[in-house]
């Protein structure tokens, strides 16, 4: 078993499949009255969050607690680099506390890699800068598999601000490993021209959402931050929404069985219309529930055996 989950590239097909299968078992357990399992009793999981993300932190916390791990929430937000303790000093503190796993969320790409070089325990990337968010990709893949029954051969469009999206990077890597075909869609300013070469040569790129939709099994809308406008990535929210937003008319271009995903939090009316977000094709609420199962699976597989 792998020691750290820093990138979706840490997962080969067998490991990724094992995590998804395990998540399935965990999901089944979530339906019963007693949700807690004794599995990780005596293990310590630290949630080290340098960025606000209540939903991700709560998801990891629920996952760890359901497996009976001791959870320490270490919110480092607000401690600026100049004034606050350095990541390395924090790492040494966590090491001294005997953390078996550190779940890290950080605004700097690669922070989990640095952390892993300073602690003995497992490091789980809960989102680093504009790099990756591998557990999000796992829960997304789990959601696709649950809804559509398979991953191999699925055609998935990931739409929006690919350049700044850690969700997109992890999804491209993981979905490719699992045999799905990914098309990245967005304005050329937000889809790096070497993204396919960088992540997976089979990845396709399109600037035209309408032409892509009829062939897709899954369309995943990425959050687009309106401040990108100020930096001239696109002219206006209105134009963005008109060209790359998923509204009802566009949703109808999808095949009957296709699903609509969003990692949240959504900008309703920007990248996704409210009627689409709330439609039966939308898996947005399921994704949240599946997040706990996927994270339980990751924690179990990283911590459930001999270190």
């Amino acid at each position: 078993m792998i020691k750290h989950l820093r990138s979706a590239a840490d997962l080969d097909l067998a490991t990724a499949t094992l995590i998804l299968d395990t998540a399935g078992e965990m999901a089944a357990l979530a339906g019963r009255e007693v949700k807690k399992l004794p599995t990780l009793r005596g293990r310590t999981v630290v949630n080290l969050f340098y960025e606000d993300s209540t939903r991700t932190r709560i998801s990891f916390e629920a996952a760890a607690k359901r497996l009976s791990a001791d959870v320490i929430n270490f919110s480092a937000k607000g401690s600026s680099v100049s004034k606050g303790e350095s990541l390395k000093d924090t790492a040494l503190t966590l090491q001294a506390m005997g953390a078996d796993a550190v779940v890290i969320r950080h605004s700097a790409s690669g922070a989990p890699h640095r952390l892993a070089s300073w602690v003995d325990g497992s490091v789980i990337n809960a989102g680093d800068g504009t790099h990756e968010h591998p557990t999000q990709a796992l829960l997304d893949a789990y959601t696709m598999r649950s809804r559509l029954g398979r991953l191999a051969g699925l055609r998935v469009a990931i739409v929006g601000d690919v350049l700044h999206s850690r969700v997109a990077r992890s999804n491209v890597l993981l979905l490719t490993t699992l045999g799905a075909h990914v098309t990245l869609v967005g304005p050329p300013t937000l889809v790096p021209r070497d993204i396919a070469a960088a992540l997976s040569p089979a990845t396709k790129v399109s600037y035209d959402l309408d032409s892509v939709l009829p062939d897709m099994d899954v369309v995943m809308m990425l959050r687009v931050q309106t401040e990108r406008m100020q930096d001239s990535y696109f002219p206006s929210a209105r134009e963005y929404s008109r060209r790359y937003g998923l509204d009802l008319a566009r949703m109808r271009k999808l095949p009957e069985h296709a699903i609509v995903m969003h990692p949240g939090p959504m900008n309703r009316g920007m990248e996704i219309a409210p009627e689409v977000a709330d439609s039966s094709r939308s898996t947005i609420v399921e994704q949240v529930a599946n997040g706990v199962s996927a994270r339980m699976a990751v924690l179990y597989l990283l911590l459930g055996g001999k270190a």
Partner: protein
Amino acid sequence: MTGFLIQGVSVLGAAPSDLVLRDGFVVSAPDGTEDVVDGSGLVALPGLVDLHTHLREPGREDAETVETGSRAAALGGYTAVFAMANTSPVADTAGVVEQVWRLGREAGLVDVQPIGAVTVGLAGKQLAELGAMATSAAGVRIFSDDGFCVADPRLMRRALEYVKAFDGIIAQHAEEPRLTEGAQMHEGEVSTRLGLTGWPAVAEEAIIARDVLLAEHVGSRLHVCHVSTAGSVEVLRQAKARGVRVTAEVTPHHLLLTDELAASYDPVFKVNPPLRTAADVAALRQALVDGVIDVVATDHAPHAVEDKECEWAYARPGMLGLETALSIVLSVLGERWDLIADRMSRTPARIAGLDGHGTDLAVGSPANLTLVDPSARRVVDPAELASRSRNTPYTGTTLPGRIVATFLRGEPTVLDGKAVK
């Protein structure tokens, strides 16, 4: 003053001969009073000259001082280094450049030649008192805002023109700042994969293209710092072919390392301009051989531990270079001693107008030289470096060549591979 008799040394790879140093010069024959140095197996080069060094004093003495940087330079075979102006306070007045110059003379290990800032506080708004620095005791001839680009084209034009009065030269850090906002590494496949903001090659090439046109227009000399891309090489090649008076430098690390190293997220590989692709490395090597790039300059940039043992985005850019430069160049160019002497000693001294350095070891020449053992191999251990900082990208790498001795005006600064003081 003791003389030295270096027996059986190969000057620039020629057949072994004796070299006699007395009273600061190379002389024709020993008089029997000299200390004898065994030169067998060693190659003598004119003392190396570095056009681009950060000594950090005043301001960041925890990272480097004039003295520790001078020692590192001597151990690297250098007899003269040009100290960049981005200290704190900035070397933008006669007072600061004289202070640095004096500290260099006191350390007495290499000739420390201060570079003056082009603009007040490196802020890119207003010319610093370039003339005052030129006529100060430091005799500044090279001016640079290195660390920052003189981005304002009008200001750059004025600077290029103004320094003609005292045969000065502007050394440009070519980086269009709007194209590199938040940039962390070379923009390309690796940056896309790692989610680090890209530093596009065009940000360097656009400034060099603009500046060679400006230099041509006003008839001034221009020096381009740390050229890092194949596209920059092409711009320079065309400018030189047209007769523009432009010179350029490349760092040892840009001749060897590539952006793939960032995959570790270890900021020891973070540098500005960033490590580029293998294709860029190949173009830079060829340009150095062709003479499109004139010199190797280290961009020796010491940083304290806390500025490197952190997240990539928060780390300061830069790497140590003085103590490994010759080894890197040897591994890149091979034992082409005349070419090495040209790119690391003669040409940098000529660009800077530095008398007494970069002259071949003929009778009557100043005795500034270094002795290299080309057959030696060493494994780089940061703990063994003389620099106060440890941010070498070569930790654990086996490098060819070792500096055995360095002489500054006939006095040894390094003997038996150790600094004399």
